[in-house]
Every structure is written in structure tokens, then in C-alpha cells.
């Protein structure tokens, strides 16, 4: 009956609210589940019951407080390469829309993953390195003048997957408008000789970037139960 249907709909919305959702999601283009989320899910599922020691407000896999783990796909575009110094192999905007984070969620960990198409790239010459930098940027992708890189690393070899902890950077309030915008640059060390392509040695073959974010929801932030 309509009365019953109204009651059920009210119950459903109050249940969804208690699950931290404003409405029943209806995924339009479901993406594959990131392997890291499957691993955490399976590990917890396989624990013997009852497991009193299991804390629902902690993500043991990363050793941080939190009860929500999300993986955001990069929505940024490639940027024109400039050659201020050395050989710039790759310049890309990384843009993560974090607007789904609820008011009151506290970020406890953020980890950027860069995945390349091949397993590894060796630097073309002994002693030569690839340099990777991540800059905070405006939403339009302009590096903010005078800003130091959030991350600066040198590699003799680039592996297929690189992980960077960005927790400290995000906690410092570098998340205007609940989005994260960064500029990624990979360059071959300056002063090197050889053709630009060979110096970059495939480091421009970026396949995907994603941001894993762990947050502590409101349910975990009040005084602990029992």
C-alpha cells in the first residue's frame, strides 16, 4: 500500500543515512574494484569470528585510524611540455575530485599511486637519473609561483607502480574546494647528452594515477562506545 511504501522509503533513507549516504547510489558506469580495496576487504572477511580485537575505526593495513577507504581516479589532462632545464619527459595535471568526502570526515592518510605501462625503465646512461616532482597547482593547472614541490625524488629506475604519501601535504590544508590539483613532472637529469626521447626512456608512458584516501567518519569520532 502507499502508506507501507512511504514507511519503507523513510526507513530506507534513515538506514542509508546511518550508513553515511545521502541517497541510494545507482552507479552509471561502474569501475573495477581497485585491488588494494579487495585485499583489505578479503583479509577482514577471512578473520575468524567473533573477533573482539577487530577495531572498526582503524585500517590495520596502513596502521592509521579510519573506517572509510576510497580510491579516486585522476581526472587531469596532459600539459604542454616546456623545456626550462634538462629534458622534461612528462608534464601532467593530476586532478582528484574529493567533494564526496562528508563534512566532519577527518583525513588520516592519502597515498598517490602512479602506474606506468611497462615494468621498469632504466636510466639510459650510468650515473644519469630521472627526476620526479609533484607541485601543488591551481585548479587550472598552473603551478603556483614560488611553491616548493610537495614531492621530489630521483630514480635510477622507474617501476611500474610508484607510491607517494601525501597525507602531510593534505593535512596542511592544501585541498581548496575539496579537490586536489597537482602538477606531475618527470625529467631526465640536466646536462645529459643524447636525444630527448632516449633520455626519457619511456618515463612518459604513464598509464594511470589514483589517490587512495583513508578517513575517519563521524561515527568513529565521538566518544568510544563501551
Amino acid at each position: 500500500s502507499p502508506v507501507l511504501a512511504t514507511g519503507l522509503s523513510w526507513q530506507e533513507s534513515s538506514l542509508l543515512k546511518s550508513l553515511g549516504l545521502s541517497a541510494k547510489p545507482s552507479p552509471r558506469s561502474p569501475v573495477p574494484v581497485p585491488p588494494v580495496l579487495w585485499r583489505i576487504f578479503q583479509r577482514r572477511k577471512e578473520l575468524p569470528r567473533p573477533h573482539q580485537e577487530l577495531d572498526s575505526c582503524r585500517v590495520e593495513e596502513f596502521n592509521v585510524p579510519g573506517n572509510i577507504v576510497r580510491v579516486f581516479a585522476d581526472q587531469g589532462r596532459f600539459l604542454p611540455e616546456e623545456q626550462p632545464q634538462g629534458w622534461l619527459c612528462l608534464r601532467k595535471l593530476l586532478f582528484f575530485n574529493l567533494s564526496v568526502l562528508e563534512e566532519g570526515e577527518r583525513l588520516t592518510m592519502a597515498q598517490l599511486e602512479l602506474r606506468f605501462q611497462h615494468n621498469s625503465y632504466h636510466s639510459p646512461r650510468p650515473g644519469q637519473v630521472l627526476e620526479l616532482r609533484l607541485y601543488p597547482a591551481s585548479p587550472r593547472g598552473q603551478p603556483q609561483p614560488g611553491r616548493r614541490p610537495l614531492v621530489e625524488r630521483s630514480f635510477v629506475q622507474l617501476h611500474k607502480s610508484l607510491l607517494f604519501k601525501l597525507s602531510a601535504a593534505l593535512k596542511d590544508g592544501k585541498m581548496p574546494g575539496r579537490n586536489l590539483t597537482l602538477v606531475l613532472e618527470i625529467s631526465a637529469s640536466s646536462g645529459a647528452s643524447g636525444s630527448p626521447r632516449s633520455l626519457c626512456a619511456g618515463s612518459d608512458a604513464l598509464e594511470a594515477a589514483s589517490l587512495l584516501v583513508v578517513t575517519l567518519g563521524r561515527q568513529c569520532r565521538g566518544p568510544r562506545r563501551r
Partner: protein
Amino acid sequence: RSPPSPPVTPSPLCKPRRLYISFSDVGWENWIIAPQGYLANYCRGDCPFPLAAELNSTNHAVLQTMVHSLDPQGTPQPCCVPVRLSPISILYYDNSDNVVLRHYEDMVVDECGCR
């Protein structure tokens, strides 16, 4: 030939009972990725006078059963309720099609008690 065993009657005492919650039964199968359902259980049963130790009762519940035995109309028996619950994790799509893994506390009834 062994004598016929007496028929097994379910215990009327307060304890956890099996309840499997299927997310497709509640119409959530489109957005919950895993699990498809889980054993949530529930509490049901009597909290009779005198309360036995295995009924996980509080001192208050013991006294309430005593008063109930003297005045059944005026004072109810204690309730059979969950006293220990454990969390589960759920993988789902949120309203922006992101995959989310969330740990939810108090989702599975492990023990019941008279309270």
C-alpha cells in the same frame, strides 16, 4: 536397538538466532559490491526468574526479574538484547561512482543477554 531420542525442542531462553541478511532482498544489490549478504543474527528468548549466569544479565536485570515475579502486571521481564556485536566491511559504489570500502561497527550479533 537404541531407544528413540526425545524430540529436540528449541531452547526458549534468550540467545542469538540465525538471521541472514541478503542485500538483494532489500534492493541494494546494484550498489553494494560485496558482500552480497551476511549472517547478522538477532536475539530472541525468555529471561525467566531466576536469571541464570549464561544469560549475561546485569544486576539490574536480576532485580527486575525478582520484582516481576512479585508483580507481573506492573513490572515487565528484562529484554533479550544484543550484548556483543562485531563489525563487518562493505565494498560499495557511492553517489559519484567511486568505490568505497567502509568498516561498519555493530553489524553482527555475537552474544545476547537479559538487560
